[in-house]
């Protein structure tokens, strides 16, 4: 499978990573190389095999419903690049 520039541009957009137009070709080549490497998997017969999403062979552990966390807004905001009046901020969004 080889990826064209347009596809790479679309992936970069989905991943929210700026890719300069000049780099698209090179990246397309690299990503295509990786895809052709992983494409060997198509030789394997996986009929009737369930995907193994985790090796952990447990049920999902549950916690009790109790307030045990939060209540530390300063710590949550301590690393924020731009916090105002207890809020995180982002460039203005128009809905």
């Amino acid at each position, binding site marked *: 499978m080889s990826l064209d520039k347009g596809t*790479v541009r679309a*992936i970069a957009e989905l*991943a929210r990573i700026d890719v300069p137009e000049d780099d698209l070709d090179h*990246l397309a080549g690299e990503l295509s190389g*990786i*895809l052709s*490497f992983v494409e060997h998997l198509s030789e394997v017969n996986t009929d009737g095999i369930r995907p193994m999403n985790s090796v952990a062979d447990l049920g999902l*552990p549950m916690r009790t419903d109790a307030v045990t966390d939060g209540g530390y807004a300063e710590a949550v905001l301590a690393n*924020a690049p731009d916090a105002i009046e207890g809020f995180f901020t982002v*460039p203005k969004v128009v809905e």
Partner: protein
Amino acid sequence: MMSELTRLTIAEAGRRLAKGDFTARELTEAHLKVMEARRGLNAFITETPELALESASASDARRKAGQAGGLAGGLEGIPLGIKDLFCTKGVQTTAASHILEGFVPQYESTVTANLARAGAVSLGKLNLDEFAMGSSNLTSYFGGVENPWKKGSDPAARLVPGGSSGGSAAAVAARMAMGATGTDTGGSIRQPAAFCGIVGIKPTYGRCSRWGVVAFASSLDQPGPMARTVEDCALMLNGMAGHDPKDSTSAPMPVPDFAKALTGDIRGLKVGIPAEYRPDGLNAEVARAWDQGIEWLKAAGATPVDISLPHTKYALPVYYIVAPAEASSNLARYDGVRFGLRVEGGSLDDMYRKTRAAGFGPEVRRRIMIGTYVLSAGYYDAYYSKAQKVRRLIAEDFTQAFRSVDVILTPTAPSAAFGMTDRSDDPVTMWLNDVFTIPTSLAGLPGLSLPVGLNGDGLPLGLQLIGRPFDEETVFKVAGVMEQAAAFTAVPEGV
């Protein structure tokens, strides 16, 4: 005195601290000195000498008050390095990425908290491949780490320590730290341990908590210890492991005393030797080391058994779908809003795109993009779902094998350490370093690498022991016997 202290193992240091031969503060000072002297290796991203001395003194005070021993024992007053993927409260944690530069967590990872409770002293935060993505430590935003070992044929060449726990491996090999934490997603503890001539174990998935460890690929990531002896790794794992209710994938199982597993008696054990790990063109020295390992085990009364792990060759493609897919999602949180780097932009999306382009290095960007692609509409089944199915086949190969053997022996890496400028830019070639470690990661099994000798160029080679799920004890036991047999006493330059 100083250099003598840094040559001790954790076990010896523990005994002598108990006897009062020296203090934890003296032991820490000795290591801080080496840390300073070997700064050129670039093993640390953040050194914390003041904090280290403070906690060493606190350890001495505990010992004086008769409270020494911590929870697990054996780590009281022992200076360790922490891979900079573990969040440490009040100390910068970067994952070796520009995007997290300056990030100071307000919380402490479970594993490092466990170590602190056991009395260990942290010297600082160790360099790694960016977000643990790499096998060379060359992808770190803070520069590559240099392996303290030198090639006999070309002593001027700077070699990689392996990755991603390259800073950990280099620091332990160069005696800057008695041990270090690592994390292993596809070989990131075992391969650098092999490259730097030390011991490292990736425990069973779920043995050590992932809480507070910067995530790369959640279904594969597993913290583990790196040290200079098998026993030291066992002592460290005693301090690191344990069920953590904050990690839903943490195993609710008791932690045995791993050091007690080192009985030296492996008579009657069956050791699997997988045919698929001896491909055509396997490096002859690596093959010879492996054969030697088999002989040692035979001599100790174990029985080698030829086994087959037929899906081995698909492990790398599976890994390079699953790990980037999970990473693409795990790394979505680095968006310039709540922590880390932010590059302003005219709109929200513009800010995201600029921040992430500037914050992530090329290997991370590449993996995020591959991961994004294999999960995207129309490709999920062909890539991600297919890979997870083949993953089950790989895991079943091991299950099948462990019906007839107790442990599996393989090489750790296809080669010894290579030069920092040796390898091509082709990512796939670089990924082949992990060909022997990745299957174990996919199956979630414990895997230990220990040094067994030097190649013709004077560089260490490692062998890998793979165990049944949650049977680290057998792995340690066999490793202990091999360690005895190998009598690996070589040290890198400057030690």
